[in-house]
C-alpha cells in the first residue's frame, strides 16, 4: 500500500444483472461501498450472495451493468488491468478453498514469497503471524484435511489477508465458528480495517456480527430477485420500508417499522 497507487477501495455497482444462462439470479443491483467500510451482503440462502461476490472479484462476467473500483471500471478493464485490480483483493471462499496438498503455513506463505525482496524464511514468519491472528498458532504444519471445519474457515481468512489487501472479500467468515472465535473474528476484522485501512466486503448470516461491525450493507431479496435495500444495517432493521428487509434483520419477528425500537 504505497502512495503511488491511487486509492481504489471505493466500490460502486450500477445496474448489475447476474445470470446463469437464462436463469436470472439478481437484477438491477446498485450500491456504493465507501473506503474503509465494513460492508455486509445479506439475504436468504441461495439468493445469490456468493454469486455477487464472484462478480465483484471478477470470476464471473456480469450480464449487464458495471462495477467500478476507485472510479475505474472493472468490468470494462482489459485482462492485464484486471490482474492489477485483483492483486489488491484478498478473498476467502465459502468452502475455504485451501490448497489441500500444502500445509497451512505454505498456503499462506506461497503468495507472499512471490513478492520481491521477501525471503522464504520471512514469508513463513509472516504466515505464522497471520495464523496467530486467527488463533491457529501451533497448526502451521497441518494439512487442510487434518483440521476442523471452523479451523479451515479461519485458515482461509488468514490466507485472504496474506498480502494485506486493500479490499478483503469474505464469504461467510463466521459460519461454523463458536461464539468466542466469532467475536475474535469481528475484532480482527475491525483491527484490520483500522490498521491497514482495508475495506471489507463480507457475506454473512450472523446478525450479531452484522450489527456489531458492519456500517453498510445490501439486502438481496430472493422474492423480487433484486436488492431490497442498501444502507446501515441497524437503520434498515428499524426503519426500512421493505417488509422482507425488516423481517430478515429481526429474525422474522416484526410488525411495522413504527413499533420496532431496539
Amino acid at each position: 500500500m504505497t502512495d503511488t497507487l491511487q486509492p481504489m477501495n471505493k466500490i460502486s455497482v450500477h445496474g448489475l444483472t447476474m445470470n446463469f444462462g437464462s436463469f436470472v439470479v439478481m437484477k438491477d443491483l446498485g450500491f456504493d461501498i465507501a473506503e474503509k467500510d465494513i460492508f455486509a451482503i445479506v439475504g436468504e440462502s441461495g439468493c445469490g450472495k456468493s454469486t455477487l461476490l464472484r462478480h465483484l472479484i471478477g470470476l464471473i462476467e456480469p450480464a449487464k451493468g458495471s462495477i467500478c473500483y476507485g472510479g475505474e471500471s472493472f468490468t470494462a478493464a482489459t485482462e492485464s488491468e484486471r490482474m492489477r485490480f485483483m492483486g489488491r483483493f484478498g478473498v476467502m471462499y465459502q468452502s475455504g478453498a485451501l490448497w489441500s496438498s500444502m500445509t497451512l503455513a505454505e498456503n499462506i506463505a506461497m503468495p507472499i514469497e512471490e513478492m520481491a525482496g521477501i525471503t522464504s524464511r520471512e514469508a513463513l514468519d509472516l504466515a505464522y503471524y497471520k495464523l496467530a491472528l486467527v488463533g491457529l498458532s501451533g497448526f502451521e504444519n497441518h494439512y487442510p484435511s487434518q483440521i476442523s471445519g471452523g479451523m479451515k474457515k479461519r485458515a482461509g481468512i488468514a490466507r485472504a489477508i496474506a498480502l494485506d489487501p486493500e479490499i478483503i472479500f469474505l464469504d461467510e467468515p463466521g459460519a461454523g465458528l463458536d461464539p468466542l472465535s466469532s467475536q475474535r473474528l469481528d475484532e480482527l476484522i475491525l483491527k484490520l480495517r483500522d490498521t491497514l485501512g482495508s475495506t471489507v466486503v463480507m457475506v454473512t448470516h450472523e446478525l450479531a456480527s452484522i450489527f456489531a461491525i458492519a456500517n453498510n450493507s445490501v439486502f438481496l431479496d430472493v422474492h423480487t430477485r433484486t436488492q431490497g435495500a442498501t444502507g446501515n444495517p441497524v437503520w434498515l432493521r428499524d426503519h426500512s420500508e421493505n417488509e422482507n428487509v425488516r423481517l430478515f434483520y429481526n429474525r422474522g419477528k416484526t410488525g411495522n417499522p413504527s413499533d420496532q425500537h431496539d
Partner: protein
Amino acid sequence: MEPETLLIRLSMNEHATKFPRATWQGAGTEKTLRLAGEWTLGSGEIKVEGYDDGDWPKRFVTDGIGHFDSRLPGYLMSCFRAKKKHHEGSLSGLPNNLRELMELALKVPDHHEAEKQTEHSGRLAALGTKMTSVWIASVSLVEFIGETVLSLGRFFTGKARFRKSDFRTILQECGAEALPIVALITFLIGMILAFVGNAQLANFGAGIYVADLVGIATVREMGVVMTAIILSGRTGASFAAHLGSMNANEEIDALRTFGFHPFDFLVLPRVLALILMMPLLTVYANTIGILGGMLVAWTAGITPALFWTELLSAISPQSYSLGVIKSVFFGATIAIAGCMQGMRSGKSSSAVGQAATRSVVVSITAIVVLDSAFAILFTLLDI
C-alpha cells in the same frame, strides 16, 4: 537538541526510509529495539543489526517508522516466538495500533501440543518402514479383493444396493465411448503384425501364413492385452480419480452414514461393468485387428478371400475363447486396481492425482503378470 543536529537526523531518517531496519542496541535483557524505515511488503529486505537468537527488547524506539503493514508485526512475532524464557515479553512502547495487532495474535496461546514432531530415523528404520508398508499394501490388496468378492456375492443373492442409472453411465463410459480408441489402436497393431510377418514370411515364399500369424497373435494376445491397457489408462484412472475425489470430499462417508455400503454402491457397479464390457470390447478389438492385417496382406497380394480361408483354418474356437476368457480377468483387475486406489487415496488434490497414476501403473503391471501366468498355464495344459 540543537536545531542543526535535528536537521541532520531528519535528513538521515529520510535516507533510511527506503528499507525496513531493525537495530538492536544494548545487551542481555536490557536491549533497545530501534525500528525504522518502510515496513511494507514491497520495500525490500529487512536489515537486522545486533540481534542475538532469543532476544526480546526491553524498550522499543519506533519514531523512525514510515508506513507499515503486516510485515512489522510479522517480524516482531517471529522474534517473540523465538525469545528465551527470561525475557518478559512486554509490548509496552509500541505504538497503539501495532501493540493491539500483536496482542490479538498472542491472545490465543500457542497450541504446542498440536505441533508436529518430525521423526528422524536411521536408514535401517527407513528400510523397515518400507518393508512394512509393502506388507501392509499387500494385506490391504487382499482385503480389497475379498471385499469385492463378498460384494459380488451380495449382488448375486440380490442384497447389494446401487443405482441402476450409475451402472448404465459407467457401462456407457467404459464400453461405448472406448470404441473409437480401441479400434484405432488395434487396427494399427493388426497392420504392424502383418507388415512384420509378411516381410519375414515372404522370404520363404510362405506369405500366406501371415493370416495365421495375425489371426493367432491377435485373438490370443494382442486384442485382449491392448484393450486392457487402453482401459487401464482410460477407465481405471478415471475410476481412481472419481472415487479419490469423492473420498476427499467426504462423499464416501456420507454414503456410509446413509446406510449404503460403499463397496456395493461404488466398487460393485464398476467391477461388473468392466467384467461385462471387456469381453465385448475384446471381440470387437479382435475383429478390427484382423481387418487391419487383412488390409496389409491385400497390398502384399493376398486377397481377402484367401486370407479369410487361411484364417479360419488357423484359429480354433478354443484359442478364440482363450482371449475372451482372459479379458474377464483383466477387466476385473482394472476395475479393482482403479477403485482400490481411489477408495484408499489421501484427501488432498495431489493425492487424487497420485491415486490415478498408481492405478494405471498397478493395473498395467498386473495385466502383464497375469498374462504371463496364463501363457504358462495354457502351455502346461497344452491348449
